[in-house]
């Protein structure tokens, strides 16, 4: 589904991603963990086409197509979705207008007919129920006046409405209490199937209890320095990142030319 090769990216002229390699296959869930500032959100922004993030090297294939040939909206229509770490408030645009416009654009691109108003409304009601969101939310402005938790739930709500193939969750669990975490994870698990894939960015192993990953990667200073199964998350929870950092340090010393 997604193949990342030697990805380098700059923010404000500073190199943040320093050669990422990652293969994500259909049906898989990958988790990325790593300390603050290691480049997790940068990766998410690069993959979704935020123009503030400059790709300097490497390539990414999304379903065999060159990702960097596509603008953000095309990536979305091809099935990519990012649940933002900090969802954006948009005063003056209702969730209904926002989602209807997005959904119709995606459907148009995929040569599907627009949903009728009733079909759209049914879908909204259905998915709102899954996430325990109030029906009235749909007429409110996008994320305006939403609590932190509501914003995160709204991202997953959007995911369920738009039905993407590849989903990036950027710390969707941060700031959620245990009930909200359960609801959000449930939303993800309901949606998870053999035809889609997830890349889950988190600091906490507890999310991975609910959304069980197939692979866990550690991102540190712009590189994936360790990969493993879901037990790696438990190990990180227990020991922190220091033990890997040490390994990394040693690695760098052994092959100084790699820097």
């Amino acid at each position, binding site marked *: 589904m997604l193949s990342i090769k030697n990805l380098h990216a700059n923010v404000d002229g500073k190199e943040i991603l320093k050669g990422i390699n990652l293969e994500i296959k259909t049906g898989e869930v990958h988790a990325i963990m790593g300390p603050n500032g290691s480049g997790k959100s940068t990766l998410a922004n690069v993959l*979704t086409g935020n*123009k503030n993030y400059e790709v300097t090297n490497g390539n990414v294939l999304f379903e065999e197509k060159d990702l960097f040939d596509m603008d953000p909206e095309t990536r*979305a229509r091809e099935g990519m979705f990012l649940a933002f770490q900090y*969802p*954006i408030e*948009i*005063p*003056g645009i209702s969730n209904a207008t*926002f989602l209807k416009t997005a*959904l119709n654009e995606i459907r148009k691109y995929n040569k599907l007919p627009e949903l009728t108003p009733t079909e759209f409304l049914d879908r909204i009601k259905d998915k709102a129920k899954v996430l325990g969101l109030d029906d009235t939310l749909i007429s409110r402005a996008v994320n305006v006046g939403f609590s932190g938790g509501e914003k995160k739930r709204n991202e997953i709500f959007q995911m369920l409405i738009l039905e993407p193939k590849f989903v990036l969750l950027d710390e969707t669990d941060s700031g959620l209490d245990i009930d909200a975490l359960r609801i959000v994870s449930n939303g993800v698990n309901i949606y998870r199937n053999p035809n889609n894939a997830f890349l889950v960015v988190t600091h906490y192993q507890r999310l991975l209890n609910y959304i069980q990953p197939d692979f866990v990667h550690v991102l540190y200073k712009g590189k994936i320095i360790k990969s493993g199964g879901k037990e790696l998350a438990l190990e990180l929870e227990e020991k922190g990142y220091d033990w890997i950092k040490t390994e990394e340090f040693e690695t760098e010393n052994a092959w100084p030319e790699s820097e």
Partner: protein
Amino acid sequence: MEHKNVNEWYVAKFKSFEDKLNGQSKSFLHEIRKNALNSLAELSFPTNRNEEWKCTNVAPILKHNFIPAMISTVPKFQQDEIKPFLFKDFDYHLMVFVNGLFAEELSEIGNLPKGVVVDGLNRIIKNNPDSISKYINNLSKIDNAFNALNTAYSYDGLVVIVPDGTILEKPIQVLYLNSSKDDLVLSLPRNLIIAGKNSQVSVITNYRGYGDKTYFSNIITEIYIGENAIVNFYKIQNENDGSYHIEKVQAIQKKNSVFNHYNINFGGAIVRNDINTLHDDQNIETHYYGLYLAHGKQHVDNHTFIDHAKPNCMSNELYKGILDDNSRGVFNGKIIVRRDAQKTNAYQQNKTILLSKTATIDTKPQLEIFADDVKCSHGATVGHLDDTSEFYIRSRGVPQELAKSMLIRAFANDVIDTVKIEPLKEQINHMIFEHLHRVEIENEQ
């Protein structure tokens, strides 16, 4: 020097205008005209040296020799030709003016409550001049040559009289269509609205151009709002790039009255609005809502004024603008709180979004407060479309142009949302959409 010639041009044309009045030159209005003609000969058209016109250069208007509509040929329109210009899907009394002259055959006034007058000024002068003699030209003072020009040639325009205690349920839609084959037409509507005690009325003025010929609308609108009356006055101006448009609104409010003024400008070569309201008693409410969209080399100037002369009144003003390309916006919001006007609440806000590096806005709040127990605030912001929001919307599959236009409409929303007639609100929204997408198409070329 050039300006002097302009005055002479319009003074010289007066003779042929007068000849066309046949008989009417004995009316009281003609005295008003002749006085105004004297002023026109003496007053100069404003220049940038005039503080009130500092940011708006009217020289492009003055370099044309416009022909007052009365002495020019008036084009004939069929009902179905004007249809596309009308706001629809609600009931209204329709008044149509072509080049500022009442087009009776295109108007559909329909049934009016007893005593209500909705008519053209010229017909009133012929049939019942006494009904307006105390009112017309009583509020508006001639303070520049544009006002003098309108008054000297005042002949037709909208007249609405709503008697005491009468509520006009349906709004009055007034289409001002400007068009000509050959001449550079000068359209000079002279509007008068008199809302009696305890009355209610809504007027939608709709200024449009037919074709792309250059013309000039120079308008004066006087509005009397009686005790406990409610007047909703909408102005939607959507004209071509060669049109010049100047309107002065002069309103006076009595005790407990409410005046809502909506001013939506889609631009023209030069658009200038002066909207002035005087509070003549206590417990008055005034709301000014404005939205201006301009692109290309358009110039839109809104000068608003609320004269808080009496205690316990409130005014609330929200003006928003969206400027693209090389367009220029001007906002000057003047509020005077006079010494007697204790317990005044006055709020004013002006927000502008610049869509290009070359668009400019001059915004100036002008608060003069002479009372001590008042609550007044004002604010002006100038910004750009938010990149992060744009990316968020695009990341959901929405193309860039549409994402931008959604954000712009969202920005305009708190102004548009105050429009009380739902279908009108929708159609204004649609006009904004069309306007923005035309902008996009032009950008791509």
